[in-house]
């Protein structure tokens, strides 16, 4: 018994130092104004400012769109990958881009999308003329989805791989069509992967900020932009932390909504 207690020490230390303590610090900071006086003003400011509320709406809306786009692309990808020979190799190709630094990938897209970039050169060559691609919502969504796709494919792929093939065979034996099998057997069984994927994509998308500037040209403003500004330029850490707390709450809501409800006796 005592030995077991010893094993938990590194884990407990890790959680307390690097998870609980930072969260408490952010919460603590959010109750101070720029002069170091304790106040609830930051929250009042957040809740009464149309700028921040609109920004929150923007962030949630874009994160939702990014998640949907990634899901629509990733589910069929994961499904097909599962039926290929050498599927581990094909999966590796999907994961490979995550080995490259995020900033480098973003800069690569600047080279592709700019007015004199590869895509515009191709469009001109085919007689379609050059178009404004950078600094548009579409290019922002495209790059964000590109970056998040591996994080969606991976969990879905794993949960699809875990499905016992005999369940699918049984479904066919009992006369279900391919569509019915997918809807009644494969989709529900792959749900945990989909939920994990949504968590892994939606939450980081809420606070994207590098891509909003580099590809979106700061015409897409999310809460991440505001946090960066408060911590680096105005040095109003209190307000920055308040927005941080809002994001944390949003994440808990997402976790709760996509969490496994089986243990609570519901049907999934």
């Amino acid at each position, binding site marked *: 018994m005592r030995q077991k207690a010893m094993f938990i020490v590194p884990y407990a230390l890790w959680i307390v130092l690097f998870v609980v303590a930072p969260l408490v610090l952010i919460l603590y900071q959010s109750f101070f104004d720029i002069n170091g006086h304790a106040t609830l003003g930051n929250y009042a400011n957040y809740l009464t400012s149309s700028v921040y509320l609109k920004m929150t709406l923007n962030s949630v809306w874009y994160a939702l769109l990014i998640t949907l786009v990634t899901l629509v692309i990733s589910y069929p990808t994961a499904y097909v990958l599962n039926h290929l020979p050498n599927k581990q190799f094909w999966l590796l190709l999907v994961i490979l881009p995550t080995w490259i630094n995020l900033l480098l990938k973003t800069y690569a897209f*600047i080279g592709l999308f700019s007015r004199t970039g590869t895509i515009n050169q191709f469009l001109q060559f085919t007689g379609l003329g050059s178009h404004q691609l950078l600094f548009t919502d579409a290019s922002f969504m495209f790059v964000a989805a590109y970056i998040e796709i591996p994080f969606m494919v991976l969990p879905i792929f794993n949960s699809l791989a875990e499905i016992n093939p005999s369940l699918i065979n049984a479904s066919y034996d009992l006369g279900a069509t391919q569509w019915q099998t997918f809807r009644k057997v494969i989709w529900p069984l792959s749900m945990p992967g989909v939920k994990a994927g949504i968590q892994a994509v939606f939450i980081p998308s809420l606070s994207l900020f590098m891509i909003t500037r580099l590809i979106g040209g700061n015409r897409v403003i999310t809460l991440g932009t505001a946090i960066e500004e408060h911590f680096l330029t105005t040095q109003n850490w209190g307000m920055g932390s308040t927005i941080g707390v809002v994001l944390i709450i949003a994440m808990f809501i997402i976790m709760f909504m996509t969490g496994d409800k089986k243990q609570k006796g519901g049907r999934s």
Partner: protein
Amino acid sequence: MKKLFSAFFAVVLICILLALGDLALNHQSTGGSGKTLTIYNWGDYIDPALISKFEQQTGYRVDYETFDSNESMLTKIRQGGTNYDVVIPSEYTVQRMKKEHLIAPLDHRQLPNLRYIDPQFLNQAFDRGNRYSVPYFWGTLGIIYNDQKVTGKDVQHWEQLWNPRLKNNLMLIDSARDVFAVALITQHDSVNTTDYQQLKLAQHHLKQLTPNVKAIIADEMKMYMEQDEAAVGVTYSGDAREMMNINHHLHYVVPSEGSNIWFDNMVIPKAARNKTAAYQFINFMLEPGNAAQNAKYVGYATPNAAAKKQLPKKITADKAFYPPANTMKHLQTYRDLPLRVLGEYNDLFLEFKMFAK
């Protein structure tokens, strides 16, 4: 398991070898002497040949470290544990460092070469009597334009940026103070205003600029302007110089009705370890020959009058980088504003960016 252990061992071995290599290289360059001068400066902001020259003249070893923003530099120095001997912050940061007692007053007797500095750049509002700082380079905020897309006479003044012909063709620097400076100058207010009404008015004016704004970005603007992505940009003279070196269709204008003028300055932090060397270095950089060589390398405007005389006419006659006296007299420096006001600038700027859709 065995494989895992050998992989781990290999990584540790590589790390040790790298550390030993680093140590050996460092040891070689010190030549055993413990006399070092540590400089903390912006990236690529000094002619490296001058560092070697200083090392040969004085026998000190120079450690050159770089930062990329005043704020990150300030945070690092504030936290302590650093031993930089010479730091080169911009003027509003000098003011803040002074307020926080992070920099030491200068002994002018040890800086005889200070006499070469043009008096119009001395005794500025951010540091009266230059008690703490010596100007290093100076520059302006201005308009950069591409002559293939607009004619020069259409972009001589700030108000012309509002021209509907520039629709979706203007890039702004992602900085609240600079963007508001543009709007405040068009309504004849100070760029350091603390009057919320004036700021609100400026923001209202800026919102009318939004159809023209293509992007609000930082350093990336250099790359975009070089690649002809937009016709016009609002940027600093230093960045403009870099862009113009690459794309010869770009030109830089300082509007005659006024703009921001900035200074980068040499200061000695309180925590400096080698003050004698620091004074020697500042004095060395003020020597006209060295200052001129540095200005040629960096490409910014030098505040050193004697050095300016040594520069080729082609450089000093360029009105974009050495504006004529009647423009100079309308230029304003930024003062370090109270955090509350700074917050107002940034909140209004954030709102403007949201509106920029």
